[in-house]
């Protein structure tokens, strides 16, 4: 089975307010199509690690490979293009752009990628919104819909460029149990149906236990995987 992610001996230090060893020599692999939950107490470094995996944080030691490409040491612009194409990121808060409609929010990463025509992108964005059951909200401003709907629009945005890896920083942390179930089912479908790799940081034990694999962290180390 192809490897989607390989982390080798990753160390991360925070310099302010004082030097703090946040990640201590973390190494692991994730296969393609795997649905992995990362759990641990607050401050154990799981979000820190996720941001390194997401390529946004480049200030670390060790090496990281995504989709068999070496990420460590790449230029910011290259990383931005890589994120745009290969990674869908879902945040705890929806972080939609409030001045745009839901549809536009979903379209923006694809317009940035610029691989398809505007009409095709609009069609795909509609499809994604329908898939997440928020097709009816497409033309409303992103700030005018409910929290659960916003999170689903944010997921649609993460999916628009058909990324092979989807990362979530507590993607269900702000949702009620009904919406959590919807999101989980979506992830499950993406992992087994579309062979997408899902990496989600979560506090929700039910969510974690239903996933394929749990990476548990404590004090900057992996204690179980």
């Amino acid at each position: 089975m192809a490897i989607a992610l390989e982390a080798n001996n990753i160390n991360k230090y925070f310099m302010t307010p004082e030097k703090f060893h946040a990640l201590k020599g973390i190494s692991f692999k994730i296969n393609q199509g795997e649905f992995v939950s990362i759990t641990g107490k607050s401050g154990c470094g799981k979000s820190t690690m996720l941001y390194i995996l997401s390529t946004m944080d480049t200030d670390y030691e060790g090496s990281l490979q995504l989709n068999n490409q070496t990420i460590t040491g790449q230029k910011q612009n290259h990383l931005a293009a890589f994120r745009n194409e290969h990674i869908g990121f879902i945040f705890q808060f929806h972080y939609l752009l409030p001045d745009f409609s839901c549809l536009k929010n979903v379209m923006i990463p694809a317009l940035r990628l610029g691989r398809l025509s505007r009409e095709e992108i609009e069609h795909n964005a509609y499809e994604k919104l329908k898939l997440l059951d928020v097709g009816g909200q497409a033309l409303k401003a992103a700030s005018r819909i409910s929290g659960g709907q916003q999170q689903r629009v944010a997921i649609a945005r993460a999916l628009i460029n058909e990324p092979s890896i989807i990362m979530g920083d507590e993607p269900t942390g702000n949702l009620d149990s009904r919406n959590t179930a919807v999101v989980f089912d979506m992830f499950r479908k993406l992992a087994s149906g579309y062979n997408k790799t899902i990496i989600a940081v979560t506090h929700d034990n039910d969510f974690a236990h239903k996933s394929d694999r749990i990476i548990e962290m404590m004090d900057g180390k992996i204690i179980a995987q």
Partner: protein
Amino acid sequence: MKIGINTEIAFTYLVSRRKQTIVAALGVTFGISMFIFMNALITGTNEYSEDTMLNTTPHIRLYHDNELSNGRMLNRFAGNKTINLISNPQLVPGDNRIVNPDAVTSLLKQRNDVTALSQQVSANVIYSNSSVQENGNIFGVNILEQNKMFDIASTIMAGSLKSLSENANAIIIGAGLAQRLNLSKGDYIKVTASNGASKSLQVVGIFKTTIKSIDNTKTYCNIPIVQQLLQKDRAYITDIYINVKDYYNAPAIGKSIEQLTGYTAEAWQSSNEQSLAGKKIRDIIANSVVITILIVAGFGIYNILNMVIYEKIKEIAILKATGFQGAHVVGIFIRQAMLIGFIGAMAGLAFGWLISWTVSKMYIGLGNVTYLPIAFHVKHYIQGGLFGMATAFFAGYIPAVKASKVDPVQIIRG
């Protein structure tokens, strides 16, 4: 039209913060409208004073200046056996005539940078009517040629130019002289030269330039009259007035005419240096005012963009997280600044035109200034638009670069 995603985002931000956009654009509008107005006023004033100058001064005056004595004659007399030096050479008061003026004129006519030529001869005279006398200068000219240069016809109050060329013993006098000597059209005036020669001439026209020194002293008559007053022959011509196409280039053209003819050429610039200094000072004043205003407008854009970026810092982080590169973020905010600049500049051009137009209707009524001189030049509007955009660009660049440096991890994680 295909609109890029950066432009679309910039545009949406502008529209969603309408008030801020308008305030920022108003800064540019004000700056550009002042730019237009100041330029229109200063250029109008400059053109007015230039017109006034060129209504009395030709672009180039060609005349025969006194020469320093040289050793040419001495060499001819003493030969090359000795080195002949003239210590303390003096100016030789010569005949100030231009030799064979028609040949010189036709030579000049062949140049394609010359637009008009007029031969003339002038004399200091005393005008008298009964026992009242006035000093002045009489100019013997071909009035129709001279009219092409100075548009004398437009200053004529009574009579006509044509009657001067039709009547050999005619004279056109200034309004001031007419008043002082109580002359009107059809009356006779006695003109006496310094050598005692005198002529009685009929007034066929009265002109008014509103420049007092000219209206009180200057008169026009036919060339032979002055030649007779000076007791000279029919070929006696002292000046050739030359108008050229590019009169800003008159000094250089003058130099080449000097070389061509051997006579002294004086460009209008050298006889009007004071006025040109005034023009320069006006330009500097106008430019400093305009630059100040544009800088203030630039700071307006800078401030508002900084505010926008502060407000949108989370969204910038998200854009970067979803794959926008630094250059894309710069692009978004530069576009935003440029759009503000564009809107502001367009409004500024319209508003500047409106101010200029309104002010050009202001009645002054002093001397020959009836309405405030205002120039409407397309050049100013193009410059104004470009300056507005440039100001917006520079004002937007710094905040845009700042925005592009946002670290998404720091912002998203708080």
